[in-house]
């Protein structure tokens, strides 16, 4: 049918054939091509809603195998479009595949049709990108998987939105906070305790920094925020914006000053 051919011609990775047997072998080839295919971002990435927007944060560590550290300079938050960003935990090969395809799809759609992809469109596309990777989780006992989160500001609805995925593409929208990675479980309670519906961006930044300090302390796969500042960005009705390092340092200093247990 022409409909499938048309979509495949415009957004290559999603043709029906790509999702089937041919897609399977393509993904395997992709793994072979990856020079550092054992690299992992054990990671803490999360997104947090506040009064007028959403904050998305990620640590900086890339690991090799279980204990090796490859880099503490990795940028895990990726800007996709004016009002959206993603961050991933897991196998670097899959993460780079997801990021490349998402940025390409967003920019292609904007160039061809003159508008940004909607948050729902981005989430569906990401789900479709993840589906062909299911075999990796089965063959590697859920070790070599890529798990993204998507943070957006929905201009039509006038509200921030977060989408959380699993390795097979299933996704849901948490009410105000969602994330992924080995350090995420450690911070879930902390963020829920501190979160307020009407909190401002500064307050959200303080919670996020505190969460990063906790997750860095509990997992070897997460960079320590005291040694390497995490990356954080805000998306609101004005669009995507990185939070500058000076502000992050200030927030970190304030938290360390006030929290005896974290010094």
């Amino acid at each position, binding site marked *: *049918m022409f409909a499938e051919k048309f979509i495949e011609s415009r957004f290559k990775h999603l043709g029906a054939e790509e999702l089937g047997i041919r897609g399977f072998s393509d993904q395997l080839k992709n793994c072979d091509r990856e020079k550092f295919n054992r690299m992992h971002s054990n990671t803490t990435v999360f997104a947090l809603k506040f009064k007028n927007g959403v904050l998305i944060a990620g640590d900086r560590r890339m690991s090799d195998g279980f204990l090796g550290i490859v880099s503490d300079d990795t940028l895990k938050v990726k800007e996709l479009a004016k009002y959206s960003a993603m961050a991933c935990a897991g196998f670097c090969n899959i993460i780079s595949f997801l990021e490349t395809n998402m940025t390409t799809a967003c920019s292609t759609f904007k160039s061809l049709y003159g508008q940004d992809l909607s948050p729902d469109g981005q989430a569906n596309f990401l789900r479709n990108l993840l589906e062909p990777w299911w075999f990796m989780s089965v063959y590697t006992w859920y070790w070599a998987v890529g798990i993204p989160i998507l943070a957006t500001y929905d201009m039509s609805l006038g509200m921030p939105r977060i989408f959380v995925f699993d390795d097979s593409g299933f996704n849901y929208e948490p009410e105000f906070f969602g994330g992924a990675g080995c350090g995420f479980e450690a911070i879930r309670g902390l963020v829920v305790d501190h979160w307020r519906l009407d909190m401002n961006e500064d307050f959200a930044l303080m919670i996020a920094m505190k969460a990063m300090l906790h997750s860095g302390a509990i997992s070897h796969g997460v960079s320590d925020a005291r040694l390497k500042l995490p990356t954080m960005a805000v998306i609101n009705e004005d669009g995507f914006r990185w939070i500058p390092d000076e502000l992050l340092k200030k927030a970190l200093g304030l938290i360390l000053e006030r929290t005896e247990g974290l010094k």
Partner: protein
Amino acid sequence: MNDLVTLFNFKNDKILKALSGNIGLVVRGQNSVAVVLKSPHIFNFYRQPEENKHIFIWAICGSISDMRVFEVELERFLSVFSDTFSGRDLNINLIQDFITGYLKHKFYDDKSAEPVALEFILGGVFERHMVFYIINYEGSSEVLDQKANNISLVGGGNNEDKKELLDNLSKLGTERVSAKQIIKKIGPYLRKYSGDFFALTFTVTDKKLRHKDVDRSTKKKPKIKK
């Protein structure tokens, strides 16, 4: 190469013949635009993917099977697209891209001699303004904006017939009357075309075509003096 040229010429002749008794017009009037179609087979589609994004598709069709096959393909595309992205992301530019691709795919298919006789008028709200596209059977499209001619058409027979019709319609001074009056005025000139008559008017406000002024009440057949 010669075989291909013969094939395309064959299709071209068949399509022009099939569409010769059909006509579709977009006519700019005073603060309004009228879309008028007369054809035995009119394809009509309307969707509002989300607020401010109305999409209208009209087509004159050479045969009932051309119309039905396209309808199935469009529904399939909308379904696959909504699953891949989201129904919210539908817009008039995307539909135009799909339809031109469909027509090119059918016309330049060198494995099929089957002619697909379809020509389209698309209307849609994009960035709060109404945009019209005219697409011919080969998949060539033209966007109608404020600078475009006052009258554009699809179908209408051979080039001489089209030229004669356009000359006659341009003498009516349609740019000085409302869309409803345009429909009444041009009716008699469309007598030689057969089939159902379809008309729709859009009102222009603030020098731009705005979605909220879409008037669908003129879908009834206008009275034409005989």
